[in-house]
């Protein structure tokens, strides 16, 4: 069982959260984004084997999004923070 530290509620088990995927994507600007930009944003992923920054929604708690840096080869949670936070550790 993963234990995720919500910056607002504290450490909670993974079952309180809903996974929302890769946190490194930049949504293209609606006016200026090209088709290529949208293709990359919607479909392409780095999918690294190592530290991965991702979003989890604390859906059974405060319902806010939490940014999590997790090693996807060991499932170790390296750091958590607010969605806009810059996380440290894990070599990525």
């Amino acid at each position, binding site marked *: *069982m*993963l234990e995720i530290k919500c910056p607002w509620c504290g450490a909670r088990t*993974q*079952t309180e959260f809903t*996974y929302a*995927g*890769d946190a490194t994507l930049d949504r293209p600007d609606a006016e200026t984004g090209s*088709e*290529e930009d949208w*293709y*990359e944003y*919607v*479909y*392409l*992923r*780095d*999918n*690294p*084997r190592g530290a*991965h920054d*991702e979003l989890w929604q604390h859906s059974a708690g405060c319902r806010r999004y939490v940014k999590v840096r*997790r090693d*996807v*080869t*060991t*499932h170790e949670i390296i750091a958590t923070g607010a969605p806009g936070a810059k996380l440290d550790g894990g070599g990525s």
Partner: protein
Amino acid sequence: MTKYSIFSLARNALTEHRNWTEAWRSPDPKPAYDVIIIGAGGHGLGTAYYLARNHGITNVAVLEKGYLGGGNTGRNTTIVRANYLLEGNEHFYEHSLKLWEGMSQDLNFNVMFSQRGVINLAHSDPQVDAFQRRGNAMILNGSDAVFLNRAEVQARAPLLDCSDGARYPIKGGLLQPRAGTARHDAVAWGYARAADAAGVDIIQNCEVTGIDIEGGRVTSVQTTRGAIKAGKVGTAVAGHTGHVAAMAGLRLPIESHVLQAMVSEPVKPCLDTVITSGAVHCYISQSDKGELVMGGDLDFYNSYAQRGNFPSIEDVVASVISMFPAFGRLRLMRTWGGVMDMSMDGSPIISKTPIDGFYVNGGWCYGGFKATPGSAWVYAHTIAEDRPHALNECFHLSRFARGYTIDEHGSGPTPGAH
């Protein structure tokens, strides 16, 4: 290659089975090959076999970082079916199903393909309509399908709770009679043995760590056993597709997730077909050893670990017990996980890439075992001819950018949702 037969069995019985020859060699890598396949699962080994058998290309190596068949090929719940709605999918999987029907003979290796039928349960009236439509589409596409009403489902699966009080009401089911299960390891072993006999070098404990490209063309791979030159390189690394393609500088519409499966303690025969439910999301069959083989959802987060977490196990077991209350008395014997290559539309990618001589086979999601022979067949064609086979044109990497995704479930670009 010693041909396996009743006679070779009898002959070897006389010497207490001590003198069987090795099923395949363990050669050292040569400095160069015409084609290198990365990954010795069913898809990689099968591709090497069909490169030799269908295209006469035998200067081929299959490089495997661990032992052959140790990836998802040896970890899956072995369901083989071709019950898809969409055009491209159904033609491809039906071709694959036909190859399954001849595989043991073709490879001279018993892969124990058992056409015990796969029933996809309908739990609501709209599902009944949708399944009848899918069944009709399958028949129009040359495959087989039979819609069963509730009583017919009950007759085929007596322990399934089809009562009015069932937690998940059973309204009927879409049966594919020619679908079934196979012995997963035997598929890897059978293709390995046949490919080896055709001259293919299978090199285990050899991890690819880099892919060299010069002037837009692949030239060699770096491995833990040194550099090896190659005219063409194809990946068949399932859950590792993302980071292996990254070695060639490609970003793909794929995420790696962990999927778990589990077996109960072995019991006497009590389920002689395969029961699947998309709505509850679990699938169950009984192995020849008597274990009930079960699987369900992903763990729903990116993972390259071959193990998962308890909430998903609990979810699968709860689903199975609510459908088969009697199974609540069994103990769980073993659980394990595999790294899944979840694509953005739920369909595979078998394709050329923007790099000359570099090919990708991945994005198999929950269902790449059944695809093994079909995938290997068309991938070998794609590599040999440097253009897709008619059956995998639709699985081209460019389909996402062009808007031609093949999204069987209509669930959109969320890999975990397929």
